[in-house]
């Protein structure tokens, strides 16, 4: 038996020809977060502390779909979600519908530790964040130009997209094509 750590920055239809300028920052962020996590484990931080630390760092990287860089709703707004769970005790906390909280995972931990509940959402979660004094910013700080463009593409194609979805382009027309009858991206 020994320690182990794994982390992810999202799954999807990641193109194999991903340009270096899009690939390298993500690889560097993964490596940085892994190093932070390993160092925390070696410093005898609890598993709960380590996962919170690592996910906070991932939330702060704008090229991943969490925190700054979160994708947009059909109204162009941000609604972030997070969850944390302790395997020993099964204590857990979750939040959703956040629009101003810088690190949703830490608010999820506060839900776990400071309330008798498991899950807070939308206005209640935002009010709890204010009450707990967690860092908040104007919601515009989470929105990146890349995600504004992604929303535009998704709306033009009338579909939803998971973290990494390539636009389907009709080569002959240069238009977005919906290939699935249920108007959803089934290929990731």
């Amino acid at each position, binding site marked *: 038996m020994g320690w182990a750590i794994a982390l992810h920055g999202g799954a999807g239809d990641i193109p194999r020809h991903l340009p270096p300028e899009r690939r390298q920052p993500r690889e560097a962020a993964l490596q940085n977060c892994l190093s932070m996590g390993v160092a925390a484990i070696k410093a005898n931080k609890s598993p709960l502390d380590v996962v919170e630390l690592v*996910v906070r760092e991932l939330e702060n990287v704008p090229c991943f779909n969490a925190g700054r860089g979160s994708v947009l709703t059909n109204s162009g707004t941000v609604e972030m979600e997070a969850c*944390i769970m302790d395997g020993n005790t099964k204590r857990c906390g979750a939040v959703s519908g956040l629009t101003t909280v810088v690190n949703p995972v830490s608010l999820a931990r506060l839900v776990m530790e400071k309330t008798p509940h498991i899950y807070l959402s939308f206005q209640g979660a935002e009010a709890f964040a204010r009450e707990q004094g967690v860092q908040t910013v104007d919601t515009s700080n989470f929105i990146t130009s890349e995600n504004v463009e992604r929303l535009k593409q998704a709306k033009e194609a009338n579909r939803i997209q998971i973290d990494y979805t390539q636009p389907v382009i009709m080569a002959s027309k240069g238009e977005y094509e919906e290939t699935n009858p249920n108007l959803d991206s089934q290929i990731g």
Partner: protein
Amino acid sequence: TVGCVVVDGNGSLATATSTGGLVNKMVGRIGDTPIIGAGTYANRFCAVSATGKGEEIMRATVARDVAALMEFKGMSLEVAADYVIQHCTPKGTAGLVAVSATGEVTMLFNTTGMFRACATEDGYSETGIW
């Protein structure tokens, strides 16, 4: 979506996941991440964080199923996670990272790729996309 799972040298487990959801999702839509047992779950057997299309991950109760297969069928982490990803979720919709109480680690997906990294006490380390 981003996530992290950890087991320490005593076999204690934890998981965390955070996300913005789906591009062009309806206002008010809840995904799998905050639903305990869907995108995120940990018990004394394993810790799991999932990513992908939330609606499919919720239907398959991905994270809890991995733990249940280990607890009730005695599967290893690798076999349980592989079963859930390959047989319980539609192709192109899900991925997960997981660790077990005995220090196993797995990172599986049925999408084209998943940004991922892991390390273990014995010195193994991996970073990958596809």
